[in-house]
């Protein structure tokens, strides 16, 4: 009976029930429900449940196998850790939206058909947007709207792709897509929408734009679910799509380069989500059993260490109210536990031996080296050096050590520290006992992470990165700047469009209105007076109708151009970026 009970249902119904409780009851419930979800996931076995026929389409709401279970486990753990971290907040809205967001993420990973996936996908976008709006500051609200705009566009692409795919193949069952089979347009549309959610450049800017603006606790949830569900669906639908190897490698490097330039602590971490998801996207592109194992285990490890890093940076923001590295420093004196726990996450993401990243990331690199090209493996190793440089050295140095900012904040609330502690235990536990994670993976694991060559090579890369960091420290100082990413197209580019709408188009429209009101109407009147003699009733009424319609539509146009057109502008620019993405796909296929 229990395997009928969908974790998504538990989270979503739980989330809707939460507002009925107040204070300590609500807080307790926000921890009990995720614990029940963990229990529920532990009871799940492979199989198909909850399928029924809806208007002639077979819907499979709940399909479980080893791959979806890996994600199910880590989503459940993160649901608990994230809620523990946000236990102190009083904003019920944030708690509810986090529950809906996680619930719909469960909906995606256990979806057996495209429609269930689409509906869950859309709920995720809207529920997560609230976590950005909830910080209530003007930049956050703006970033939240941009976030929604981008994700709604992605949702439309996905919807279009699904409909085309369904019409061409006659099946809505969720599964691998092949180029040419079921239409190349459907293949491309779905791929672009998945790549958008995975933050693959040039479709990455929504992430680094919006996540740093979210609430301290909201960003922890955001860092875990959206990009990783995208990795999951890519694993399901596009394993072995070679183009993803190169997109993934480019992503890993792209995030590292932008992280050098970044001054905002959580935006820097956001660029490292892009970089780390790059490893996973590359692994999907390689598509061998070892690569798929690598991607699944890296996603599992990533959710926990990235959550820990966001919790650490969030704790600093919570206690100091500051997020710019140029305004922080010297906090190690009063926040040693935060420093230590953050560093566990940093060593895990950097793949130090005996930390989680070491046993997961190396599987992807080994898969790349074994199956694919040396170039991909080498470039991923460059990105590894960059990962340690930024999250392990630059960020903690300027946030916790470095010049003394004079700030003496205390440690964050206990619940935040405990949540970080649990995540840290996972980071070390997986690193020391990789078998626990490997047993969950979809394919049998033959990979051995702890060989002398691997340990020495990794330590060599990491510790000499440290040497270079110390020697070139003064060149790395953060600067009071922001970096232009592809969001430029809908932030500045949109203004060009609006200028075009306001100036030349509005002038032309004014001219047409004057023409309509003046000579145009006079002609109409004369004509109607003459025709009055022919047929007073019919013609007169019709002509008045035409004149009124002309005037009304003129007014409608004027209204469009003063306010709402900016939204249309944004939508068009975002669409344009999507088209560029499609073009790039086809371009590189042809090459």
């Amino acid at each position, binding site marked *: 009976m229990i395997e009928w009970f969908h974790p998504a249902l538990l989270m979503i119904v739980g989330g809707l029930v939460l507002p009925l409780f107040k204070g300590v009851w609500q807080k307790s419930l926000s921890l009990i429900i995720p614990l029940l979800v963990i229990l529920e996931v532990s009871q799940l076995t492979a199989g198909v449940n909850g399928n029924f026929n809806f208007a002639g389409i077979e819907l499979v709401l709940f399909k479980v196998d080893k791959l979806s279970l890996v994600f199910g486990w880590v989503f459940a753990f993160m649901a608990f850790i994230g809620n523990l971290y946000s236990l102190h907040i009083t904003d019920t809205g944030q708690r509810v939206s986090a529950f809906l967001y996680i619930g719909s993420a469960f909906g995606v990973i256990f979806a057996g058909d495209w429609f269930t996936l689409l509906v869950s996908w859309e709920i995720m976008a809207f529920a997560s947007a609230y976590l950005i709006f909830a910080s209530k500051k003007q930049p956050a609200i703006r970033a939240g709207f941009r976030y929604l705009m981008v994700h709604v566009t992605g949702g439309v692409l996905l919807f279009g792709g699904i409909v085309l795919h369904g019409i061409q193949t006659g099946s809505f069952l969720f599964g691998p897509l092949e180029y040419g089979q079921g239409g190349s347009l459907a293949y491309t549309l779905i791929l672009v929408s998945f790549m958008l959610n995975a933050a693959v450049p040039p479709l990455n800017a929504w992430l680094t734009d919006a996540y740093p603006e979210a609430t301290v606790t909201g960003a922890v949830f955001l860092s875990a679910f959206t990009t990783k569900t995208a990795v999951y669906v890519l694993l399901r639908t596009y394993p072995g799509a070679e183009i993803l190897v190169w997109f993934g490698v480019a992503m890993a490097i792209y995030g*590292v*380069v*932008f992280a*050098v*330039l970044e001054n905002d602590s959580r935006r820097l971490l956001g660029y490292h989500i892009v970089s780390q998801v790059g490893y996973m996207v590359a692994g999907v592109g390689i598509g061998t059993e070892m690569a798929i194992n690598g991607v699944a285990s890296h996603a599992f490890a990533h959710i926990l260490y990235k959550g820990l890093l966001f919790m650490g940076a969030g704790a600093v923001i919570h206690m100091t109210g500051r997020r710019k590295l140029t305004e922080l420093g*010297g906090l*190690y*004196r009063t926040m*040693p*536990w935060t*420093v*230590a726990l953050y560093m566990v996450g940093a060593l895990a993401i950097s793949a130090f031996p005996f930390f989680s990243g070491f046993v997961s990331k190396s599987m992807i690199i080994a898969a790349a*080296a*074994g199956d694919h090209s*040396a170039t991909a*493996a*080498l470039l991923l*190793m*460059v990105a590894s*050096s*960059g990962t340690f*440089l930024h999250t392990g050295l630059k960020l903690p140095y300027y946030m*916790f*050590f470095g010049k003394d900012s004079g700030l003496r904040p205390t440690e964050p609330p206990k619940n935040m520290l405990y949540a970080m502690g649990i995540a840290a235990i996972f980071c070390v536990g997986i690193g020391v006992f990789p078998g626990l994670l490997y047993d969950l993976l979809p394919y049998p694991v033959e990979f051995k992470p702890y060989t*002398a*060559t691997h340990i*020495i*090579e*990794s*330590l*060599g*890369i*990491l*510790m*000499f*990165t*440290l*040497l*270079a*960091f*110390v020697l*070139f420290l003064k*060149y*790395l100082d953060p*600067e*009071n*700047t*922001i*970096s*232009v990413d592809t969001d430029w197209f809908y*932030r*500045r580019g949109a203004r060009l469009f609006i200028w075009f709408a306001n100036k030349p188009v509005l002038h032309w429209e004014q001219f047409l209105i004057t023409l309509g009101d003046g000579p145009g109407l006079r002609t109409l009147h004369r004509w109607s007076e003459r025709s009055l003699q022919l047929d007073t009733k019919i013609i007169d009424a019709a002509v008045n109708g035409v004149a009124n319609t002309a005037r009304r539509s003129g007014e409608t146009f004027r209204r469009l151009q003063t306010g709402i057109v900016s939204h249309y502008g944004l939508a068009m620019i975002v669409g344009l970026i999507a088209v560029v993405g499609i073009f790039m796909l086809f371009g590189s296929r042809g090459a």
Partner: protein
Amino acid sequence: MIAKLVNFFGDAKYTRIRWRLLLIVLALIVLADFLIERHHTEHFWDAVPGWGAAFGFVSCAAIIFVSKFIGHKGGIMKDEDYYD
């Protein structure tokens, strides 16, 4: 204990000890790289002792300087009020 450990990495009075410790660790890593047995080598770099060390150092330096060059000369870095 945690506070002491964190303090060791932050307090300026330990700078010399930190440097010494780092140099010892670096030397040990390179030394170990010459001593370990290599059972199978998949790529040329697996057979080169000290490869990881050199690769890490060069990668890190390249990331710092190339990124800052792109940021400054490529027009990526803008004033904070750029979008306002």
